[in-house]
């Protein structure tokens, strides 16, 4: 099943980097989100026009995805992360095991990004939520990072988020 907002037609995304980690190990330390996002962002940004600022921008977005995985993931299985590039866009594909009953919530959160009231709901979330929900984090990516997001589901209790980030244009 494939649900998502306006991702452009499949283009020739070139693989840049692939990363896998035991979910139990990932969940053992919150700082993994920060360290991984900083390190991976620096690696994939080195040949962007402005590597320092691209890395900063990309790290922000990637960290939020890792934090979503951290908060929603279960300890069995692996977290997998792949980063691809096509022109000014980086694609992040992140897969993490999660309880089966949680999957519909991710699906719903991704679907809501496409709705016309997305901006209003994002403002409402900032205005009223004490802590960000997974929906408001995905809205943050869509609104502040111009991300296109879709979700892929498999038979195993896992979620794959595919997030296209056109950051090269934003940075430049």
């Amino acid at each position, binding site marked *: 099943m494939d649900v998502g907002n306006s991702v452009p037609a499949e283009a020739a995304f070139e693989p840049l980097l692939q990363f896998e980690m035991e979910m139990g190990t990932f969940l053992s330390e*919150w700082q993994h*989100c*920060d360290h991984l996002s900083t390190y991976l962002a620096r690696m994939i940004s*080195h*040949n962007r*026009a*402005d*590597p*320092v*600022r691209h890395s*900063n*921008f990309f*790290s*922000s977005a990637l*960290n*939020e995805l890792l*934090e979503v995985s951290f908060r929603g993931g279960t300890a069995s299985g692996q977290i997998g992360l792949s980063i691809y590039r096509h022109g000014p866009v980086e694609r992040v594909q992140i897969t993490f095991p999660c309880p089966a009953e949680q999957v519909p919530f991710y699906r719903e959160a991704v679907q809501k990004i496409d709705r016309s009231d997305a901006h209003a709901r*994002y*403002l409402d979330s*900032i*205005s009223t*939520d*004490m*802590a*960000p929900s997974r929906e*408001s*984090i995905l809205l*943050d990516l869509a*609104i*502040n*990072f111009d991300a296109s997001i879709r979700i892929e589901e498999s038979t195993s209790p896992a979620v794959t988020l595919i997030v296209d980030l056109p950051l090269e244009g*934003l*940075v430049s």
Partner: protein
Amino acid sequence: MSVTGLSPNFKVAFDANSQVFSLAGVVRPRSVDEIADSIAMLKQAIDDVRGVLYVDVKRLIQMNNTAFHAFVRVALDACRARADLRMVIVTSSVVGWTTRMFGHLNQIEPQITVEVYDSTFYPGQSFVEDTSFIPILRTQTKMTWRHERSILPRHGLRPGIAIADVCCGIGDFAVLVQKEFQPARIVALDHSKASLAYAREVATNFGITDIEYTYGDASEMLLEDNQFDFVSCRHSLQIFNEPELLLKELYRICKPGGRVYITNEKNSHCLGEPRAQSIQWTYNEVAKLFSHFDMDVELGPKSRRYLADAGFDDILVESFMVTNLDGDPQDFADVITAWENVYAGEMAVRRGDTPEFIERFRQGFRDHIFAALHPKGYAGWPIWVASGRKPT
């Protein structure tokens, strides 16, 4: 106050005198509890201020949504409770996501506004970043490189090290260093997007792909601490109104044991023969003119003091003179013509100088050119080079 429970780089401070609450560094907490002290400080700051609270996030490098929601919630609640309170959130154009994220707040609460700290961070910026200056900068670097090429190794530049060229301008020095010294990594930073665009084009034309050009504010860089073996900052301390701030940043990104290398002028010591008096008068006036705009183009010989005050040791200072005898004298003349156009044609006019003054001011530059092109003439432009080691 520093909050060290999260990242050691996360800093929170409140300056009651200027009513500025500032957040800097990286803050990515798992829960709001981890930033409870910082939240409490913001609440206290709000209680203490009258009128406007400035929230400075210029140096906020990373903030996750958990922290963003927590801080924003306090700000919004305060504005709802106090009709007299205004908040100005100061972001940086360098850290793009902050302006986007904080920019929404005004739509929620009109008492909160967002200002992008950008174009006026040092007084001489409009002159220095004037794109008409670009062609002559290349000539200047060509002339100074003849000297610096042999000077740089004495100040620690060697192959295989990590280099940052801060205030790189059009990036030609970085290209020359890359070709001559083959560093392991070279980052070149400047605040002029036009200059950086030019730099990238030149690098592309020369087939150079491994210089990391980056847009940034030299006094508040995104670059991390202790990263570079050699940090250069050429002809730039002299045009910042607060060179100490800049040196603090150069020190921060330099590795312990690494060196910071600076070059600066003492414009009143530009000289020429014949017509020495007229030339000397004009360059004395150049120093006064820059001083009017809070720039110190007499800084060169003060480099030793600045480096010492910034905490460097093993300070080395030397000087060299670019002259009309270095290569083509017309290059020297072209540089002086560009100076005349900017200094007399723009800066003196901006200061409100009389036409009589400007004419005399121009004459000194013309006499300098005359000396440079005279078959028996001599014209010079002195530059001070200094470097210091960051203690280990």
